[in-house]
């Protein structure tokens, strides 16, 4: 079969570089970051654990339908969650983050037994227009970007939060005590309400107290989910 033969050919090739290059912006400055294959594998493992906590009943698993709302350039943050969904046996679809693509998130929610929308932002929430309330009514769990939280709440949802924090992703668990950072990989500091990021793990992208151009507050100490790392709360609109 074609997929099998091309995969066999691909397996013979070296992969001399990293998994990919991502980019984020701090105060108008572009910051590039490398994601090594090792980084990506650890990100997938963390995403798997975070996804397993979400959804309905026992969490995301075989048969849970997901819509992951993200754009191609966000793949360094969201691909690990796509891969984790696959590894958990949860079928997933992609809703792009552009206004003209909002219909796709609505279409999946309307046609498929979706149990979790992960990553919906304000652009897509607004783009859904009148359909947003129906999406909220149909889908039991929504994990939204901070800028969409208010719109979703107004439509009747009680969303959890997922936020891009520089090169990292923070995801709220069902205990709602702020969005967890993978503390084996990253550490945040807060000064005057501004967030600064340091690398904690063996990542290709090493930063120390790098400003993120983001405001937020940190919560330390144990969370009800059993994790003990930092949680971050990003104000709506970021």
């Amino acid at each position, binding site marked *: 079969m*074609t997929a099998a*033969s091309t*995969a066999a050919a691909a397996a013979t090739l070296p992969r001399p570089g990293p998994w990919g290059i991502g980019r984020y912006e701090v105060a108008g400055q572009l910051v590039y970051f490398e994601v090594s294959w090792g980084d990506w594998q650890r990100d997938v493992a963390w995403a798997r654990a975070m996804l397993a906590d979400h959804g309905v009943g026992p969490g995301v698993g075989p048969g849970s339908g997901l819509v992951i709302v993200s754009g191609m350039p966000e793949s360094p943050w969201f691909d690990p969650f796509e891969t984790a969904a696959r590894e958990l046996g949860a079928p997933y*679809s992609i809703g792009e983050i552009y206004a003209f693509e909002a219909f796709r998130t609505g279409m999946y929610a309307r046609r498929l037994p979706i149990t979790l929308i992960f990553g919906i932002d304000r652009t897509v929430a607004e783009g859904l227009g009148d359909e947003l309330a129906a999406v909220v009514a149909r889908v039991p769990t929504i994990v939204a970007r901070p800028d969409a939280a208010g719109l979703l709440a107004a439509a009747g949802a009680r969303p959890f939060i997922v936020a891009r924090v520089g090169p990292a992703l923070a995801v709220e668990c069902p205990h709602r005590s702020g969005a967890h950072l993978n503390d084996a990989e990253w550490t945040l500091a807060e000064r005057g309400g501004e967030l600064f990021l340091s690398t904690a793990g063996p990542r290709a992208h090493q930063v120390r107290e790098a400003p993120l151009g983001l405001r937020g507050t940190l919560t330390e100490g144990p969370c009800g989910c059993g994790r003990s790392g930092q949680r971050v709360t990003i104000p709506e609109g970021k």
Partner: protein
Amino acid sequence: MPDERFFEPEIETMPRAGIAALQEERILELVPHVYERSALVRKKWEEARVKPSDVNSLADFTERVPFITKDDIRQFRDRAQDPFGGLLCTDYADTTTVFSTSGTTGDATLYAHAWNRWHPFWAATARDLWEIGVRPGDYVLGSGFKMRGPLYHADHMVGAIPVLVNTGIGGWATALDAIRRYRPVYAQLTGLALAELDRLSRTTDMRELFSSFKGAAFAGEPLGARAREQLESWGVEVYLWTSTGDVTGAWECGQHDGCHAWEDCVLLESVDPAATTPATSAAVADGELGELVATSLDNPVTPMVRFRSDDIIRMTKQPCACGRTHARFWPVGRKGDETIVAGRSFVPMDIWRALEGVPETSTALFQLVRPAREIDELRVRVGYDPDTTTSVPDLRDRVSEAITAAVGVPPVLELLPEPELLARGRGGKLPRVVKA
């Protein structure tokens, strides 16, 4: 194992007899599989009084098996309340991904795959990237959309490193920074991207910018002559690619003499566009105009079976000068795109060429507003470059003149700044024929 020239030499240069034997083997596996599992296939076959036992060869398949159209899928979906339109051959829970078509011509069609590691839709694309010259360790601009899944899987398959930055609408200004920094060898372009690059070319040395490129792929809609010339003037070798009936992609090789359909992945037919049943259809002759009909040979989850794509093509099974033996085709347009206004017939490409000749509309961003195939009034929505347009009334006169010369009928024009028209795009494409 890949060699210097081909990613899968044995498959890509397989003799035609070998391709036919491989296809027959896969078709004979597919026939009972879909009959037992695909509700739409069973319905269509029962209506046509075809049973799996009637199909014992590739010839039986193309002579007896009924076509399936996009309308068949939509009607089944609406009547049976089946999101997959009767195409799904497994439980939803057994799928890995459910993606969808662009939806430019109506409600998007869902298709699903079950996979591990590399998404199957992009698997054969590794062969095409290899042909462009992408090699392990090369950086590539990881552009495009994800509605059909992660295109960067093909980048990873050939060992390349995707640089994942925004190349959507409004993103190219900062994408240039990534090109300068990483010197990628390849990017994926769309018509909407070209409009943006056209504007950036006024302040950027595009030849220097693209000097690291081995090629760029272009898909989603036809590439106008002016756009191709412009890309070539920047030193970019353009590789067109298109969909084969939503089964997989078909890309040009370095000969630029048709798009290669990977026939181990798709059974490609070109049939008389007017034919409605296999009995009245005849495969059109090599090189003649026909409608692309596709059957999935490598997707047991939502296989298309004799799917009428509405795409009008010319196809040949003659070997390509590149050494590949798989069929090639040249997209010509969409069935039904031909429009008759005041007794005169034209296709959207006629308007395209006319607009390319007017500097302020040379990116040819337009929509033909057509409630029906035969219309009394030629209504065209045209995007213009606000930075170079000094007088909209003057522009209106020149655009009107150009379209009248091309089509023979004066248009009723709606002129919009390009960004406003671009906002009506979907999935990287601007629908060229719209109802309103």
